[in-house]
């Protein structure tokens, strides 16, 4: 297992390298941090633009810029220079990441619980009314764009707040990741954070729930029709025991890798959700950087995103190997 882990770990280093190269080449050639300066009216002196280009290190050829950026990042932990001098990319990245991470993790947990429960239930009662109902709901969520769902929930919550407490503070938080003046005591703070998490978490978890429950249903069905489950029943083991000990444990293997693969993709959904609920997480950082033609924060963002994809791919491989010994030995 250790050899397997090390082999996979080493194999993902070149992928990460080429991924950063690809990202750098495309992003650096499509985002020009100087364009807001050039577009100023009245025009600003060429010297100022030149100085800014020097400060951002834009005067070198693209490949050299990549090398400088990469070595700066690896050797000194330096994410590069933002267009606004007071912007510290590393700090901003970690604070934004924490905000988004708690949303994403909570959504994954919630949607996993839902998906497994529904997947198992619909597989056990295949072609029942429950199965058809759950399938229809699943298809609906599969087809519901994240932003439509988020806007719907937000609007409903606002209307609900207005009807319940027309003049008081809103009952359900619809904006931001925490109140402008959060309570200072520990429990108040936690309560405030959780209250703000409710709506975005529902959005993000239901969006990924749909495909996972379908996935869980089909893998559960496959396992339920296998010989060893029939054997376990024939041995006289109880139905519940067979269901949970023999069937479910094996049926969870495909889902675990699927979840690992989808987790990184949730970041895209988080951008939309955060935009609608006006959170100050990764989504806001990204949209703001795009608006300012701020090259290096964008690169930092993409490096984090594509590293996440690679790490979760690796995790999926390892998880599969841990759960299914046949993979490890092959």
């Amino acid at each position: 297992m250790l050899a397997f882990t090390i082999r996979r770990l080493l194999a993902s280093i070149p992928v990460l390298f080429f991924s950063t190269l690809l990202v750098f080449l495309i992003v650096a050639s499509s985002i020009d941090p100087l364009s807001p300066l050039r577009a100023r009216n009245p025009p600003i002196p060429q010297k100022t633009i030149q100085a800014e280009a020097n400060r951002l290190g834009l005067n070198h050829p693209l490949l050299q810029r990549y090398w400088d950026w990469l070595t700066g990042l690896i050797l000194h932990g330096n994410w590069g220079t933002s267009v606004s001098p007071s912007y510290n990319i590393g700090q901003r990245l970690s604070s934004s990441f924490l905000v988004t991470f708690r949303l994403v993790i909570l959504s994954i947990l919630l949607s996993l619980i839902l998906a497994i429960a529904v997947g198992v239930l619909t597989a056990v009662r295949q072609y029942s009314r429950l199965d058809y109902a759950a399938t229809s709901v699943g298809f609906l969520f599969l087809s519901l764009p994240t932003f439509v769902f988020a806007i719907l929930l937000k609007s409903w919550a606002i209307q609900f707040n207005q009807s319940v407490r027309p003049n008081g503070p809103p009952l359900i938080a619809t904006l931001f990741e925490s109140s402008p003046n959060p309570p200072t005591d520990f429990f108040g703070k936690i309560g405030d954070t959780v209250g703000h998490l409710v709506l975005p978490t529902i959005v993000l978890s239901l969006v990924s729930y749909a495909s996972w429950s379908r996935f869980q249903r089909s893998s559960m069905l496959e396992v339920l029709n296998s010989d060893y489950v029939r054997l376990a029943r024939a041995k006289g083991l109880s139905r519940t025991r067979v269901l949970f000990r023999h069937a479910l444990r094996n049926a969870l293997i495909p889902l675990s890798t699927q979840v690992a693969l989808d987790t990184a993709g949730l970041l895209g959904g988080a951008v939309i959700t955060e935009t609608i609920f006006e959170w100050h997480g990764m989504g806001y950082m990204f949209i703001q950087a795009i608006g300012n033609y701020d090259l290096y924060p964008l690169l930092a963002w993409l490096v984090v995103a594509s590293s996440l994809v690679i790490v979760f791919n690796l995790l999926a491989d390892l998880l599969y190997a841990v759960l299914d010994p046949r993979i490890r030995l092959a």
Partner: protein
Amino acid sequence: MPEKNIDSAPDIAATLGTEFGQYARAADGDREFTVTVRTQRQIVVSRFLKHRAAVVSSVVFLLVVLFAFIGPLLWGQQYSIMTNDIEVAPSGTHPFGTDSNGYDLFADVMHGAARTLEIAVSVAVASTVIGTIYGAIAGYYRGWVDTVMMRFADLILTIPALVFAIIVSDKFSANIASAWYFLAFILAALFWPICARIVRAQVLSLREKEFVEAARALGGRDGRIIFRHIVPNCMGSIIVVLTLTVANTVLVETALSFLGFGVRLPDTSLGTLVSSGQTAIQDGFPWLFYFPALFIILIVLSINFIGDGLRDAFDPQQTRVRA
């Protein structure tokens, strides 16, 4: 058991393909039941027609397509022309109401749906064609060709599509203002690896089949073997991927347009319409949000059901056919 046999006999013949003749003879031999010989296409069509949700969805999808492309020719009002009716609720003259500029939402939604569908279909076709060729070549030649090609495909998949499309589209929007085909090009460039992966996996197993060996023994060139013999046998998965890419593209394109990075004014897509109607529910003009949102859901939902039906029709093993 015998009933099941009758039903599954042509299925087996269809999945085995080359051994069809052999099977028909065996069935003829013991005379226990008769098998009507059906072509593979007939089998797939009849299985698809049994999937009720897929059939209904096909009709719905067709109606949406007619609404989007034929509708504007019949409807008197243009999406780009303001009327004097400001923020009017849905009525006879404006079935979907109007917005704060007096634009007729019915015409807006027709145009937006057409734009969304145009982008989705062109992205799906382009990415599927590229992905099929790419995946077929990688799977057929195996070895280092496969490794290099698929590692590159994986590399593209490490980049979040939505985010990436935002970055790239931002630059070019200044040059080619509101050109939807550029957006389609970007999305196709990001989506093809998904199809490539699936086709490659199929080609890897198909290339070991006897009919490929036979084609090679007859002196078929690689190109002919790949595109005449192997790829037609992957058609099932390719069509399923194609439909699901349409659904996926609608979601990504509308999300991009919603965020302001996809289709932009003066052009309209369903995403921009939802975006301009996003506070409409609490402002008291709910139709501005509900109608465009409804059409996005209608399009994606019907395509998802069609895709599900096609998957069942082409590959009954994956999800067993409904009785």
